[in-house]
């Protein structure tokens, strides 16, 4: 458990590895770290870790909600602060967040792989705060987290900007590997950036662990 502000984040150690760069797995909307247990992450040579986002899996919920793109970025940054330099493997919403963190922490993030998964796209690119549900939260994932994060825009202009930042400041080429088949607007914008490659997951992971 990783204490970050008022949230306890579950950081799972999935594989010890034989040393080398850690891989941090970020699940999709409504998922938890165990979404990765059968994934290609098993080919990673270094330690493999997985973070449950706030309101998901074994992490604590935020009473009364307030989940946002910002808060997910903070979750990942807290994990990176603890682990140190890592590669990121994100599914769905976790892929979008991984891309933004890669652009904001380009020296700590040593390669980012974007996979299909829940929350990859949403219905809008502007906020529509009409999911103002009020429910007693007794289940996981937190239904308020699902409503709020589903409603968070995935912004093409942010994705483009931070893909550029990752390519410019990480020293990696490519810095971002797109494995997803879906092309929501934010991912279409990402692919246009120099330093972003479309590939398959095994090649992407091999590229970043060397």
């Amino acid at each position: 458990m990783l204490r970050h502000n008022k949230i306890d984040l579950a950081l799972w150690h999935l594989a010890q590895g034989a040393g080398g760069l850690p891989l941090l797995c970020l699940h999709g909307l409504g998922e938890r770290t165990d979404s990765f247990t059968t994934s290609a992450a098993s080919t990673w040579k270094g330690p493999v870790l997985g973070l449950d986002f706030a309101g998901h899996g074994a992490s604590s919920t935020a009473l009364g909600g307030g989940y946002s793109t910002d808060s997910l970025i903070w979750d990942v940054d807290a994990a990176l602060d603890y682990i140190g330099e890592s590669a990121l493997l994100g599914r769905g919403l976790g892929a979008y967040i991984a891309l933004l963190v890669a652009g904001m922490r380009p020296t700590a993030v040593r390669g980012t792989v974007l996979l299909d998964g829940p929350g990859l796209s949403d219905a809008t690119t502007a906020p529509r705060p009409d999911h103002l549900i009020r429910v007693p939260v007794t289940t996981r994932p937190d239904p308020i987290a699902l409503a709020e994060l589903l409603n968070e825009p995935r912004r093409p202009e942010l994705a483009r900007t931070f893909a550029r930042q990752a390519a410019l400041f990480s020293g990696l080429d490519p810095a971002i590997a797109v494995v997803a088949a879906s092309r929501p607007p934010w991912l279409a914008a990402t692919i246009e950036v120099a330093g972003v490659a479309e590939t398959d997951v095994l090649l992407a992971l091999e590229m970043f662990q060397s």
Partner: protein
Amino acid sequence: MTAPISSYPEPRAPERFRTVNASGIKLKVYEWGDLARPPILLAHGGFDFARTFDAFAPLLAHAGFRVVAWDQRGHGRSDHAALYSQQGDLRDALAVMDSVTQDPVIVIGHSKGGSIVVNLAASVPHRVSSVTSIDGVPTRRPQFGIERRDSPAALLAAGEAWLDSRLKSTTGSRATGSVEDLAMRRSKMNPRLDITWLRYLVTVGAVPVNEGWRWPVDPALAFETMGPWTAWESLERTREIAVPILLVLGTEHEGESRAMSADELVGYLPSHARIAEISGAGHFCHIEQPSLVAAHILRHLGR
């Protein structure tokens, strides 16, 4: 910038205090005016609290309304939350609304509260009968969106500073001091407000501690966010609103902020929107000129 006007608005404490549970967050609610009167929901600005309406709310109550204000999550006497967001604030506002009536209500908000009431009207149109935003429009130069930095290096530095401050800002509390210390600190944020009024705000808004007073606002609160600032997006939603809408603007700019002028705003507004400019008043025009602002709003409400 013109000199601060030295008038001390006569405050009146709320008549009723209660607590609303908003999905587990306890919100402190304050009311002025007769319970049977038509309700007005009143939303304060960022880093403010409901009792900054002690001078303004009684004027609306006196005109025949039940005025309901609340301390937003993390502000005033309400609970600090694990997370803060516009959607969280909107859900909290709806909880306060539910505690008053299921019928449409008049909503009024100042600054960040202006964004809240505009978004409420766009999100739950069946719950809102009239909207007033008091100096709740964006500044012309949006300083709050991290991605709006003009060079990659500046963006990198801003992003890392934002993340670093979040990593360490999250515990602890605001500095303590005397009434005078806190009033002076606030005076830097609100340079146009009378010091007597700021001292009053300390005594009703700060928390007495052993060594003096402390503002209770959650240190984890921050204005800066990823992506466009919510005030801009609220402005863009204004056109969606069908009910009567009034924007009250102070004409005096405070510090570095330069609010949009009435001319610039027109393109964002539905044709039925009205603008009232309060000349010679700043961002807190409802505190500098409470009677004038109340008169504009009462006319808007058909009183």
